[in-house]
């Protein structure tokens, strides 16, 4: 667990190479960068998968890829974007930003944090290794039973998927425990819960969702694994099992998962808008409460993914009402964001563009969501491209735009360099254009009956032209991502001239150097407001004078800061765990050996600082 040992900041790279220092790092900032980089690479992988699918659908009866490849592509596209792109990109911000925003020097369990990352990477690589063996998962990211049974999916494809998701789930759970404790326990003095920045708040709700929702899919996957490996009957209709059990377990996880994907982006937008409107978030407590409400109701709406399975009119009505109810806090948030802009002085920098793009696009996704919250309407729309359009407006127009807002906003804090504004705006406008060109026509395609997950379609149904348009749009998105990459490369070659506070921002992370030192805060700040840094610079705007910057910190004080030293046990434990899990596909002996290795590494991990060489525990 957390460590007591003393560690001199900035010494980690000296004794060994740079690579070693990254492999053994327990610094939340470095782990954040690792998460972000991995997530972006998988975002590109998932994007290429999407482009191939769009090419296949560009015209009717196309034969670019066959049905098997197409089914693998949409399965891996969904799984990748949800678990390997958006979630870890959010995790990247949790890692890097939460400690900075709450005035902490690290997370509660730095080594556990590193372990979460390595296990995440293990799961991601494991899942994608299925491509190398030619057995990529092909039952959809939702993997509906009983198509996933041995009988209907005899190859190892589903095994890769089940085990990969289990590994990723463990990573998410550990990260969830870590951040729940970090946010509750590591806040700077004076930072009450209601003074926490909005991003921290939304992340906090997200952690609870992770901790409480993942067990449901874990159990669902265990039952599936048992069905496939040991011949149990959980999802086997022949033995009396009900395939709908999977749908319940999956969506009890799956709907909170939607909020796991969107809440962090909402948090980012709630940080970006006040900074660039130079006004506090309008009705911050209401935004916080509505975030909590969304998280809470998120557990009570899962069956709206199942309106077509025939649950009966009472269940349909109940889940419809609950789903409509959840639209209220969501709508409230949108109005509060507009209220934040109202009366401000809005500075049009790239992060703000993405935040505005988030509001504009997410609103559309939310409104189309209300349509299929009504079960009769849903019966027409579910499993059509209308739904594909809907959730891309939420997850791309929402999450991805929000996360890009965060990337542009915090890039100077992380690297000390401002991303180029001109390229940033090109990125934004191309992405906006490409996104709408891709997904807006899909509303229409769905309404004229185009089902999801079809690799081909007949020419006489009127679907051709707008599919072609959609494909063109997808490539415009790809170009916008290229612009972003160019921007990053060019920016990183320039001198770090951003300064500590390039946006005249409001929260604590901007009060420290860019990039922050290993210990983040030379002196842990005392907080008196939701916008503590703004208060220092500009006062409260109601006659309260600026409180001024705190006195500089002496070198001796910095020397006395204790930071956790690097550890190689997280990566070793992650490797042992991967070895054990992959044994399930190879041999029982590997599972046993891997299990023993894992247990050994766990002991070493747990006892690493049990009795530090320096003696006393404190």
């Amino acid at each position, binding site marked *: 667990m957390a460590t007591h040992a003393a560690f001199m900041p900035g010494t980690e790279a000296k004794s060994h190479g740079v690579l070693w220092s990254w492999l053994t790092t327990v610094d939340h900032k470095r782990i954040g960068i690792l998460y972000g980089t991995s997530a972006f690479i998988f975002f590109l992988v998932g994007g290429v998968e999407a482009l191939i699918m769009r090419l296949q659908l560009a015209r009717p009866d196309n034969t670019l890829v066959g049905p098997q490849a197409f089914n693998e592509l949409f399965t891996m596209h969904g799984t990748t974007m949800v678990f390997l792109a958006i979630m870890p990109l959010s995790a990247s911000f949790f890692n890097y930003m939460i400690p900075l925003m709450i005035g902490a020097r690290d997370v509660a369990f730095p080594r556990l944090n590193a372990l979460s990352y390595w296990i995440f990477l293990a799961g991601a690589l494991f899942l994608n290794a299925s491509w190398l063996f030619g057995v990529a998962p092909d039952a959809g990211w939702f993997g509906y039973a009983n198509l996933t049974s041995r009988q209907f999916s005899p190859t190892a494809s589903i095994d890769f998927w089940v085990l990969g998701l289990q590994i990723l789930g463990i990573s998410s759970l550990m990260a969830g*425990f870590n951040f729940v404790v970090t946010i509750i326990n590591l806040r700077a003095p004076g930072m009450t819960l209601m003074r926490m920045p909005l991003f921290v708040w939304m992340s906090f709700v997200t952690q609870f969702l992770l901790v409480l929702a993942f067990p449901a899919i874990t159990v669902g996957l265990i039952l599936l694994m048992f069905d496939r490996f040991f011949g149990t009957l*959980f999802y086997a209709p022949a033995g009396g099992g009900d395939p709908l059990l999977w749908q319940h377990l999956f969506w009890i996880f799956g709907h909170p998962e939607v909020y796991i994907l969107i809440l962090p982006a909402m948090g980012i937008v709630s940080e970006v808008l006040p900074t660039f409107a130079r006004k506090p978030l309008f009705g911050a407590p209401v935004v916080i409460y509505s975030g909590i409400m969304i998280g809470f109701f998120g557990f009570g709406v899962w069956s709206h993914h199942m309106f077509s399975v025939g649950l009966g009119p009472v269940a349909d009505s109940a889940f419809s009402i609950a789903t409509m109810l959840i639209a209220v806090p969501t709508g409230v948030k949108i109005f509060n964001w507009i209220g934040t802009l109202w009366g401000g002085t809005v500075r049009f920098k790239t992060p703000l563009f993405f935040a505005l793009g988030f509001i504009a696009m997410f609103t559309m996704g939310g409104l189309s969501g209300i349509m299929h919250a009504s079960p009769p309407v849903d019966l027409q729309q579910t499993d059509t491209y209308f739904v594909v359009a809907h959730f891309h407006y939420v997850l791309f127009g929402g999450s991805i735009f929000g996360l890009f807002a965060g990337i542009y906003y915090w890039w100077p804090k992380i690297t000390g360099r401002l991303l180029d504004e001109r390229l940033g705006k090109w990125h934004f406008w191309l992405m906006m254009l490409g996104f709408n060109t891709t997904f807006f026509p899909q509303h229409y395609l769905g309404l004229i009956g185009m089902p999801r997950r079809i690799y081909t379609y007949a020419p006489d149904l009127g679907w051709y032209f707008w599919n072609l348009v959609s494909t063109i749009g997808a490539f415009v998105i790809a170009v916008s991502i290229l612009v972003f990459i160019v921007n990053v490369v060019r920016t990183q070659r320039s001198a770090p001239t951003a300064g500590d506070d390039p946006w005249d921002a409001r929260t604590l992370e901007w009060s420290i150097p860019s990039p922050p030192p290993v210990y983040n805060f030379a002196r842990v700040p005392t907080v008196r407001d939701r916008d503590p840094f703004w208060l220092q610079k500009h006062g409260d705007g109601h006659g309260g004078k600026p409180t001024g910057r705190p006195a500089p910190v002496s070198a001796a004080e910095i020397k006395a800061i204790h930071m956790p030293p690097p550890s190689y046990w997280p990566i070793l434990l992650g490797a042992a765990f991967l070895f054990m899990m992959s044994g399930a596909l190879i041999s029982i002996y590997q599972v046993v050996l891997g299990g023993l290795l894992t247990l050994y590494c766990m002991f070493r991990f747990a006892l690493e600082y049990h009795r530090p060489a320096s003696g006393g525990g404190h």
Partner: protein
Amino acid sequence: MTSQAASHAEHDPNIGITGLDHRKMGMWAFLGSECMFFGSLIGTYLSYKGKSLSGPTPHEILNIPLTSVSAFVLLMSSVLMVLALAAVQRNDMKWAKIWLFSTATLGAGFVGFQIFEFTHFVHLGLTLQTNLFGSTFFTLTGFHGAHVTGGVIWLLALWALAVRGKLGPEDALKVEICGLYWHFVDIVWIAIFTLVYLIP
């Protein structure tokens, strides 16, 4: 906690703004997650109750008196866990070792009962593949048994540390966290025992 430890609290990097230890809070978060885990497993069991297409059925096969004994053994181990923690806190390492080891022993005894029960059921013709009752029963109780096994390993590890003189009152929190887990696993068994064995 000794008064010396308390005075150190503000410097202890494991104590946060709430005055609670990170590790304890982390364990509570973990147990919250575990509630959902066992909740989902128990829900699966209940939703398939009586839906088996063939026998054996629960009342043909479950041995309530025998399992009551093993449940009692597990419950008693919780009492010993409390004693073990108390001993560690008052730096009575001799008794701490005894109580830790006997807690682990009772836990192992419970697992032993379960192994016996499972093999007995297999002889009676109930396996994971036989019917829905077999699938759900073995999975639910098996995962509980795996949790108990994990707890036994944890207890034995603490005991081994104590034997080597590497466990003292300053480690009381580590024992307390292990105890939280142990009591939780116990409570889950009460739920499983009631829902699976006692309610017809």
